[in-house]
Structure formats: structure tokens, C-alpha cells
């Protein structure tokens, strides 16, 4: 045997290994594109579809949404993942059936009508059954789930339990997965999140990203407590967020100079400012369409409201961002002002921010980019809040943490109110750090943009660039023009003060002069 023989053997082994490795790499590589096709009664997206969009966007770069009735031939060819959501029983359009029949990527079906899709020919759909637990977790209330018998060779990723039997809740064979419901409460979302990477044949992340924030900072916050809690995190080199509301009632944060100074110091020491605005839209809810005399009137009112909402949001955001920037505090993201926001509100936010922090009902325990957020990344608060009113202030946190540990790649994130003091913060951090493979998110290394008409803040891995057209003169000019009546009143106040000063000088001069008698008056009167 010459030296070439071992070489040839090694080449064959290498080629075999490569193809094998290639297969396993292919099975676990990132997914770039996904589509969600939903069948609802009225053709509109429901909350559960929003949730799936959010869940998918955490692991897939691009997610598109289609109502089943809108799918055209060829639409689905480009996707690597398709989710089919049957919220209501009905006839799946032929085009959808054909497209899915020819699809070779990862296919996930939820709820009804999956039996009409050819990849599910091997599944037997037996009807509906009431289940009380899913994935070993008890449901808040019993729910109906599709009872299915998965084909041989399939794996059950999660089971549902009725009173007397076990049902597959998530079952998978090859690249086809079936989930027995299309509506998701907290337990269902937990179970789905746990199985997400497996369902999509993606590599399970080995770490849990983590972040922590100080929330509720406003013009009336105690600067000492903010400093104490912030410096605790800074001293431990934990990157942290500071959720700041620059306005509270009629008070501006600039009036609390001590707090501003503390925030500036914390910003230099690892803190990232997140702005919180107080806008709520300000408009009463839109009336039902039946209240309007015509569809055109309804549409007109709706559009007008959207414009008003958007304009109001822009104004409030700009005011908040610029107020903070003017003080040397540079917000890099925003906090959702409320849990349930409209698409218009998200759209308005997205014109100013690339990231959003909050506790939206639609988001999973991952950093995601759902369509609803119009391009913004969502950073969820997954641990809940520390409540010092409870006997165990970290009770909610512990409960959440125990579940998050079971979700690969889930974000371990908490918000803490500095007014609670540093004691519970220490415990919170300890709890977070007790999660194996937890890594603090280096948010300052990410690319973010915040912008208004007059301020742009770019954050890159290397730098923070702030561009502002706000000069003191311009601000004064805008204040004058923005509220001319107020300005006019201040001018009047100035004129009157001038008059009063003149009066005081006059009085002083009288005291020093001997006044000549102006009138002849009788002595005993006056």
C-alpha cells in the first residue's frame, strides 16, 4: 500500500462526513423566510395569528402574512417555513392546497382544516376533545383541542391530557408538524415556545439573553434611589436600561436637576436610556360601523382618527425625545406606553424607533420583530415585576423564571422600580444570574436608530452619534411661536414687572426728596 491509499480513504471518509454533516447542518440552519396563512371567519387577523407572527419573527428573519383567500399561485414558493392556521372550520382554497402540496420546507399546521392539506394525509383527525393540561402544565380552563392520531414515525413534542386520555398536542413527522389548537393562552404559548426550535428543525440556542431595566423614572423620582440602584448594576458591570418619562403632569424632568445629573452619570456607566411617553391616543374608541350612515362615512372617520392619532403620537414622541436629548440623555429605544396598542400607534412609533420594550400580549419570550411592530424589534419583559407589597416580593419573578428556564433561548428580562430600593434589586439579579447559560445582552453593541424631525441618534457597535438641530435660539423661537398666547402673557408680565420696578424706584426717590407741597390743603384733614 502506497501513501496514496490512506489519502484516498481519508478523502472518502471526509466526503461522507461532509455530506452527513451537511445534512445535519441543513436540518439546523437558520430560516430566512416564513409565511403564515390564516383562515378566520371574517378573514381578519386575530390575536393568536399575531402571536404566531411574533413567535416566528423571533427566529426567522422575514415573516409574511396571508389570509387563505388571498393566496395566489406561486406565492408560497420562496418560503422556507409555512404556518397554516385554521382558526375556523371551512374549505381550504384550492390554491392554498396546491401550494402547500408542492411545498418542501417546514410546514406547521394549527387547529382546523389540516386534514385538507396533503402533507397531513397520514394524520387521522378524529374530532375534538376537551383537554385540561398541555405539555404537563395545567390550563387555566379546559379547552377544546383537535384529537389527532399522528402517523408512525412521528414524535410527540407535547401532549394534552383530557380526563381519561392523552392526546398529541404537538406532533411532528419529518418537516411536518401539527398543533392541536389555533388559540393560545399563556400555557399554550409556553409549550409552543419550548418546542419552537424543534418544530422548525433549528438549532436550539445554548444561551438565554438577559437584560434588566430601571423603570418608572420620572421628574418626581428620588434621585438618590435611582443612583443607588443604577450604581449597583454599574458596579457589577451589568448593562441596564433606564426607562425615563421626561414629563409628569405639568412637570418637566429638567426641573429635577439632581435626577438629570444622576441619569447622565448612569448613562456613562453602562445605562441606556429608554424613553416612555404618556400618550394614550386621547380619542374615544371608534364606534361600531353600524352607527354610521354609510361605509364611506365610517372609513372617513376612521382615517381621520388615524391621522389624528398619528399626529398626536409623533408630537408627543418628538417632545419626549428632544427633551431628553437637550439634557444630554440619549434614548435608544422606547417603552410601550400601554399593553394593547393599535397598528397605527405602532406605525407611528416605528418612524422614530427601531426597538421597543414592553409587555405586549402578542409577544413571546423572545426578542422578536412581528409585522405589527412595523419593523421594530420587541424586547419583552418576561419576568414580571417585583412587588414589595407581597410577603415574597419576587414571587411572580420566581414563577416566571421557572417556566423560562424550560424555553430554549428565551429572554430573561425584568424591570425594577428604583423607588423600591436596592435590596430587592440584588435578589432579582441573583435570581436572573442563577439561570444556567444566561448572558447579559450587550445592547450598546447593537445598531439602533432614534429620530425625530430635529434629532437623530445612531447607535452602532463602536459609537453613539447624535445629530440635533435644536439650538437654544431655535427652541426659544419655537416656544414663542408654538404658544403665542402664553408668550404674549409673559410679555405682559415683563412689562408690568418693569412698571413695578419703576414704581419702586419712584417710592425710593420720594423718600429721599423733600416733596414740595402740591396743593394747599387744610391742615386738619387728610
Amino acid at each position, binding site marked *: 500500500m502506497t501513501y496514496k491509499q490512506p489519502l484516498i480513504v481519508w478523502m472518502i471518509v471526509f466526503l461522507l462526513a461532509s455530506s452527513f454533516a451537511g445534512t445535519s447542518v441543513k436540518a439546523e440552519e437558520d430560516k430566512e423566510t416564513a409565511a403564515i396563512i390564516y383562515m378566520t371567519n371574517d378573514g381578519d387577523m386575530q390575536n393568536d395569528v399575531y402571536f404566531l407572527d411574533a413567535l416566528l419573527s423571533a427566529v426567522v428573519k422575514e415573516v409574511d402574512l396571508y389570509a387563505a383567500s388571498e393566496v395566489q399561485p406561486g406565492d408560497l414558493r420562496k418560503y422556507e417555513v409555512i404556518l397554516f392556521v385554521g382558526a375556523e372550520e371551512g374549505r381550504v382554497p384550492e390554491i392554498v392546497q396546491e401550494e402547500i402540496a408542492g411545498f418542501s420546507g417546514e410546514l406547521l399546521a394549527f387547529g382546523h382544516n389540516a386534514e385538507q392539506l396533503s402533507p397531513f394525509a397520514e394524520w387521522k383527525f378524529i374530532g375534538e376533545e376537551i383537554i385540561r393540561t398541555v405539555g404537563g402544565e395545567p390550563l387555566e380552563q379546559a379547552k377544546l383541542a383537535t384529537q389527532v392520531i399522528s402517523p408512525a414515525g412521528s414524535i410527540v413534542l407535547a401532549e394534552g391530557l383530557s380526563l381519561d386520555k392523552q392526546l398529541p398536542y404537538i406532533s411532528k413527522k419529518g418537516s411536518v408538524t401539527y398543533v392541536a389548537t389555533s388559540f393560545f393562552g399563556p400555557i399554550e404559548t409556553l409549550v409552543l415556545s419550548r418546542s419552537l426550535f424543534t418544530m422548525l428543525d433549528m438549532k436550539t440556542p445554548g444561551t438565554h439573553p438577559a437584560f434588566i431595566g430601571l423603570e418608572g423614572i420620572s421628574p418626581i423620582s428620588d434621585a438618590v434611589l435611582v443612583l443607588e440602584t443604577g450604581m449597583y448594576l454599574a458596579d457589577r458591570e451589568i448593562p441596564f436600561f433606564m426607562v425615563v418619562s421626561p414629563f409628569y403632569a405639568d412637570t418637566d424632568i429638567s426641573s429635577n436637576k439632581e435626577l438629570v445629573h444622576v441619569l447622565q452619570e448612569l448613562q456613562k456607566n453602562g445605562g441606556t436610556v429608554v424613553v416612555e411617553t404618556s400618550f394614550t391616543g386621547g380619542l374615544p374608541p371608534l364606534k361600531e360601523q353600524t352607527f354610521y350612515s354609510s361605509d364611506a362615512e365610517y372609513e372617513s372617520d376612521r382615517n381621520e382618527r388615524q391621522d389624528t392619532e398619528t399626529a398626536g403620537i409623533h408630537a408627543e414622541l418628538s417632545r419626549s425625545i428632544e427633551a431628553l436629548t437637550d439634557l444630554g440623555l440619549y434614548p435608544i429605544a422606547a417603552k410601550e406606553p400601554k399593553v394593547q396598542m393599535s397598528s397605527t400607534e405602532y406605525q407611528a412609533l416605528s418612524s422614530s424607533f427601531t426597538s421597543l420594550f414592553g409587555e405586549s400580549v402578542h409577544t413571546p419570550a423572545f426578542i422578536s420583530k412581528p409585522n405589527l411592530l412595523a419593523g421594530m424589534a420587541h424586547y419583552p419583559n418576561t419576568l414580571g415585576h417585583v412587588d414589595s407589597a407581597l410577603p415574597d416580593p419576587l414571587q411572580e419573578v420566581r414563577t416566571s423564571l421557572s417556566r423560562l428556564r424550560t424555553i430554549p433561548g428565551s429572554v430573561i428580562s425584568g424591570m425594577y422600580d428604583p423607588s423600591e430600593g436596592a435590596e430587592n434589586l440584588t435578589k432579582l439579579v441573583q435570581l436572573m444570574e442563577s439561570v444556567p447559560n444566561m448572558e447579559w445582552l450587550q445592547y450598546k453593541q447593537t445598531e439602533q436608530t432614534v429620530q425625530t424631525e430635529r434629532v437623530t441618534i445612531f447607535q452602532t457597535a463602536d459609537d453613539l452619534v447624535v445629530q440635533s438641530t435644536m439650538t437654544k435660539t431655535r427652541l426659544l423661537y419655537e416656544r414663542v411661536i408654538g404658544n403665542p398666547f402664553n408668550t404674549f*402673557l409673559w410679555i405682559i408680565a415683563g412689562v408690568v414687572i418693569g412698571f413695578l420696578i419703576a*414704581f419702586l424706584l419712584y417710592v425710593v426717590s420720594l423718600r429721599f426728596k423733600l416733596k414740595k407741597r402740591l396743593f394747599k390743603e387744610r391742615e386738619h384733614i387728610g
Partner: protein
Amino acid sequence: MANLLFYIALILIWIMLLYHMFLMQGGYRHSVNFEKVIPEWRKNMSDLPTVSVFIPAHNEEVVIGQTLRAMVNLHYPKDKLEVIVIDDNSSDRTGEIAGEYAKRYPFIRLIETKSPNRGIGKSSALNEALQQSDSEVIVVYDADNTPEQMAVWYLVMGLLNDPKSGAVVGKFRVSNAKQTWLTRFINIETICFQWMAQAGRWKWFKVATIPGTNFAIRRHIMDTLGGWDVKALAEDTELTVRVYDLGYHIRFFPAAITWEQEPETLGVWWKQRTRWARGNQYVVIKFLSQLFKLKRKRIIFDLFYFFFTYFLFFFGVIVSNVLFVVNLFYDLQLQIGNVALVLWGLAFLLFIAEVAISLSIERTEMTWKNFFYIIFMYFTYSQMWIILVVCSLYLETKRMLLRQEVRWYKTERFAEKKVEGK
């Protein structure tokens, strides 16, 4: 809605405050300059006109004696002067006292009002005297007035040297200023009125108002106008408008000084001021409807000033007070901000400054005691005026709607309290 009301109130109040700030400057300038013409004017005092001094009196026994003593001391040729006391249906010794003076002094005459002028009010009494006199100049004094020696002299000086003036008004001071806290307030008020409203308007706009006493008017003007308006409770303001409408102006010449008695009790004060307020409201309503028919446009401005004062300004103050009180119990979420607080404080300071400047013009009135009275006045006397104006408006409206007759209220007089040794 609360914000809108607040803004309206703020605007109304501050228009008035700023206007008075402007007037005060004019008043002060006038106080410094008005005597400068006297040496020159004195040269024209050779051919003096005949003067009739009208003193309408209804039950004035307490004061008529001192008034007539002052008339006796007037510096004016007695052969060109007559003093006519109009006894208007008095039931006391007014007639008797005046009669005694008439017996002693030939230039003093006592007449009684006759039907239809009897017992109706001051306007009727003056009209009675108008019918029974024929001098070239008419001077009017209230029965409680004690004019200074040169008062009539200066009034006539003004008429002789200013042919465009239909009337000349002098200044009046409070003789019982130190008697009660009320008379102290009134003293401050009268000084302010004359140096701010009278002198200020005269300086800037050549406008003054006949104050009902211590004024001289050309007889031919009274003849042309047909006398005083018997329906008017404030016959002086009503006459003012008609004099201006004839094409004349009214000169404010504070060299002519009189001293008068002011109410010492709240009840008397209330009735007197209600009559004034109603009277002025009557004048405003009477002439506002003919506003643009008036010949002298500057009197339109003055009428509007009265309208603004009695209707708009007080409305603004009332709204402002109501919003303030309601806001103590229920958050109205007023959005105006800090400037409102600043303006509220400045309004108070401005009030004090303007009043103090007025007082400083009168020797011996700018005292620490008066200064504290000014502060006290802001929260008491000024607020009383608001209530009074509202009540007056109600009464005047009721009178107009129900077509009630005007009833003249006669101001109660107080005997001068003698100080031991004086």
C-alpha cells in the same frame, strides 16, 4: 370649557389692569403739570362771568350749615355770585338753616322744589334751580361739600381759558377719611378715581366725567340740553355724555378742590353705590344703543370703558373667582401653566402700585397705614364692589323689564365728630 372661561377672564381682567396702568401714568404726568398753566390763565380772569352755585338739599340739616359757611368763604366777587340752596321736600331743619344764611348773606338764596320737580331726586332739584336762575355759569355742589376758598375761582378759570370746554370739573376729597375703616377705603378709592380715571383720561384722551359735585358748566349748554335727565340715577354721567355729544369736552382741573362726607356705615355705602352703579349701567345701556350716532367719537371710547368696567371686567373677575374656588375642590385641569400664577401675583402688585402712586400725589396720604389698607382693600372692599355690581345689574335689569320707576336714594349724613380741643 374651564380653560376657555379662564382665558376669557384673564383677558378681560388684564385689559383693564393694563389700561389703568396706562391711565395712571397719564394721571401722574397731569398731576405734575396741571398747575403750570395757572399763571398764564390768571391773566384772563379780569372779566368774570356771573355764577350760580346750586346746592340741592333734601334733609341735610346735619351738613348744610358747614357747606354754607364754606360758600361764604369762597373767593369770588359776591356781586357776581349767587348760592342757591334747593330745599327738595325736606322734613328736617334744612330749610330753616339755609333760610338763616339767606337772611344774613344776600348772595345766598333758598328755593323750594315745586311740582313736578318736588321730591323726585337730585336732577329735578337742579332743574328747579335752573329755571329760577340766569347766570352765565352754573356750579353744582352736593349739600355735604365744603369747597376750598379758590374752588369756584379755578372752575371759572378753566371755563374762561378753555373755550372748547363745556364744563370744568375739580377734585373732591374725603373730609371724614379717618372716621372708620370704610371711609379710609373710600378715601383711597376717591383719590385713585381722580388721579387715575379722571386725570389719566384727561391727559391721554381729553375726556373726563362730571362727578356730580364741584363742577362748572356753561348755562347755555344746560339750556340747549334741556336740563338734567330726571330718569337717570347717575345724572352726572348721563350729562357728561350729552355735553360731549354737543361737541364740547369736559376739562379736569384739580386745582379746584372740595371736601365731602362719605358714608361711614356699610348700609349707607351699599345704597349709595348701588345707586351709582345702577345709574352708570343705565347710562351705558341708554347710549350704547345709539353709540355710533354720537358726534364725539372719543366719548364712544369712554362709554365703552364704562361698559367694559361694569359688565365685562366684573364678569371676568367673577368668573376668575368662581374658577379659583371650584378648582380648590375639583381639579379643573387648567392648562395655562406658571404664567397664570405670575399674572395673578402681578395683578395684586399692580393694584397696590397704582393705588400707591395715586396716593403719593396727595400730600400725607402715602403712609404705611394707608399702604396696609391698600392690601386689605384688595381682598375686602374690591370684592364688595363685585357683589354690588352684580346686585345692581340685577336690580337695573329688573327695573327695565318691569318698567319700574326710578327711586332716588338719599345718602344719609353723619354729624362731624368733634375732637376735644378743636
